[in-house]
């Protein structure tokens, strides 16, 4: 479904990503691991069109989407749940979810998508009228995921959904992500939490200083001595 080849991107004169290539097949659950500053968020932002690609191509079902503005990419089904959640604090939970379906394609099935999200996170239904800023961190993460789902994604990219959450919420969130994948949604999960990611993802990549250094299944990665090294950034 998603084919990235030779992707180089960065800010100003600095390149963050060097020649990154990866593929994500339809229905897959891919983990993207790496230490801080490895370039994980830049990669996700690049796929979303928020950071322009310097070189290389990003293809979605054969169509080159590099250089497209972000809203066109969302329209084609690649949606990210940004790091730090970034919900709109003054808007109600319901409105936050509704603005998630900003594209024409997603507005048609909005009601059924809303019901889907409320079934996945009943907590959001309880707090529907509350301003999003009054939610706890975990609830905000649920909201950010729900908002992403409302744009009717084909590939959902989650940038560090466990960031700053209590272990209990991390479990809830990951169970939900797993359930989404089981129901057929393709997932690209960016995480620092190694064990958690390996236990969910069918395949994982490790990014180190803007390059993909290891790729494999959970078992392969667990046994690879390089994982630990790359992960700790030594």
């Amino acid at each position: 479904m998603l084919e990235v080849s030779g992707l180089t991107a960065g800010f100003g004169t600095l390149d963050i990503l060097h020649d990154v290539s990866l593929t994500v097949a339809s229905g897959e659950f891919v983990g993207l691991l790496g230490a801080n500053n490895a370039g994980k968020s830049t990669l996700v932002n690049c796929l979303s069109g928020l950071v322009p690609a310097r070189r290389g191509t990003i293809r979605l079902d054969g169509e080159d989407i590099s250089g497209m503005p972000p809203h066109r990419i969302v329209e084609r089904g690649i949606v990210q749940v940004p790091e730090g959640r970034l919900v709109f604090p003054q808007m109600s939970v319901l409105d936050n979810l509704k603005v998630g379906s900003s594209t024409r394609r997603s507005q048609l099935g909005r009601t059924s998508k809303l019901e889907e999200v409320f079934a996945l996170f009943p907590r959001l239904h309880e707090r529907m009228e509350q301003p999003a800023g009054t939610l706890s961190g975990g609830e905000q993460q649920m909201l950010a995921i729900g908002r992403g789902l409302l744009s009717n994604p084909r590939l959902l990219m989650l940038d560090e959904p466990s960031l700053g959450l209590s272990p209990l919420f991390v479990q809830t969130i990951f169970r939900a992500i797993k359930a989404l994948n089981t129901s057929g949604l393709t997932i690209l999960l960016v995480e620092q939490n190694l064990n958690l990611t390996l236990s969910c993802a069918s395949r994982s990549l490790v990014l180190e200083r803007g390059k993909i250094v290891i790729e494999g299944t959970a078992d392969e990665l667990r046994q690879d001595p390089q994982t630990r090294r790359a992960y700790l950034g030594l």
Partner: protein
Amino acid sequence: MLNPSFWTLLRSPVPWIVLAVAVSAPLWMSPFYMSIAILTLFYVGFAMAWNIVGGISGLLSLGHSIFVGTGAILTSALFLNLGINMWLGVVIACVISALVGAVISWLDYRFRLGHLSFALITLAFAEVFLLVVLGTDFLGGASGLILPNDTGNFLQFEFGGGRGYFYLSLSLAVFALLVNLLIINSPLGYFLRCIRDNEDAAQAIGIDLLRCKMVSMAISGALSALVGAAYGRYMVFIDPYLFAGLNLTIEVVLVATIGGLGTPFGPLVATLLLIPFGEVIRGHLGGVLPGLHTFIYGALIVIVILAMPRGLVPTAQDWWQRRRRRGEAAQEKPELQRGLKPPTPMED
């Protein structure tokens, strides 16, 4: 697609009562207060037009004199120099203002201007616009333009005396307020609020930043030009420093901010309070000690900003809600006490 709260507001009796009282104003108002009312209503129009960009989208535009000026000056210049009917001139000015607004938004998007840069760029554009007006004879130059006497010929964009202009300014103010409410309760309004809260998040969830910003700026620009043209016709003398100068924009921004940004009601209420207040103290104190009214006006604004940094309307809303909650709590208390059993002495 509209949020149901829009229709609830229209169905509530309050706006209709206010409107009925306003419509009857020429029957009981003295000419002095009528002129203040007309001025205030034009300012409401400007404030509402600015609010689409400054309040709803959170872009601090200091360049709205471009649109107001285009509305007043270009419309008059086209009429005086080329004989183009002012109604047509208004349409031309609105279209040009919308285009200029869209271009400014495009620049903001293309060069990723932050809030401060956006404010400064629009300010710079406004300065350039004033210089262009002052240096162009077609637009009246530094001496301005004088429109012919108003004979009340509606087809010539003439509205007769004070009563005509009162109803003109009232309908423009109501129209501008309606445009605000329509935007706020439409998907565009939600997207604009997302952009205001967090541009990156808005982009990440697929909101078309450029389109939303361009549309909001174009609507705001066209609306400013429309009100500007009407204000110009009312004033008869098109003073470039009044219409293309920065003072008018600054005053609108100041008043809107004091009212509280976010909903159109903040700027609306503040304009309705402060503009008449400024005019009345000028009328009564201007002759006593020159400058005294400006001093009082300024001091009051400083006090309001210090005491209510979020603005008049949000502060009042908070106060009202807190009061109501306290009222509910007070009502619940006796019930709670009734439910509790009095402590009974233990028996052994």
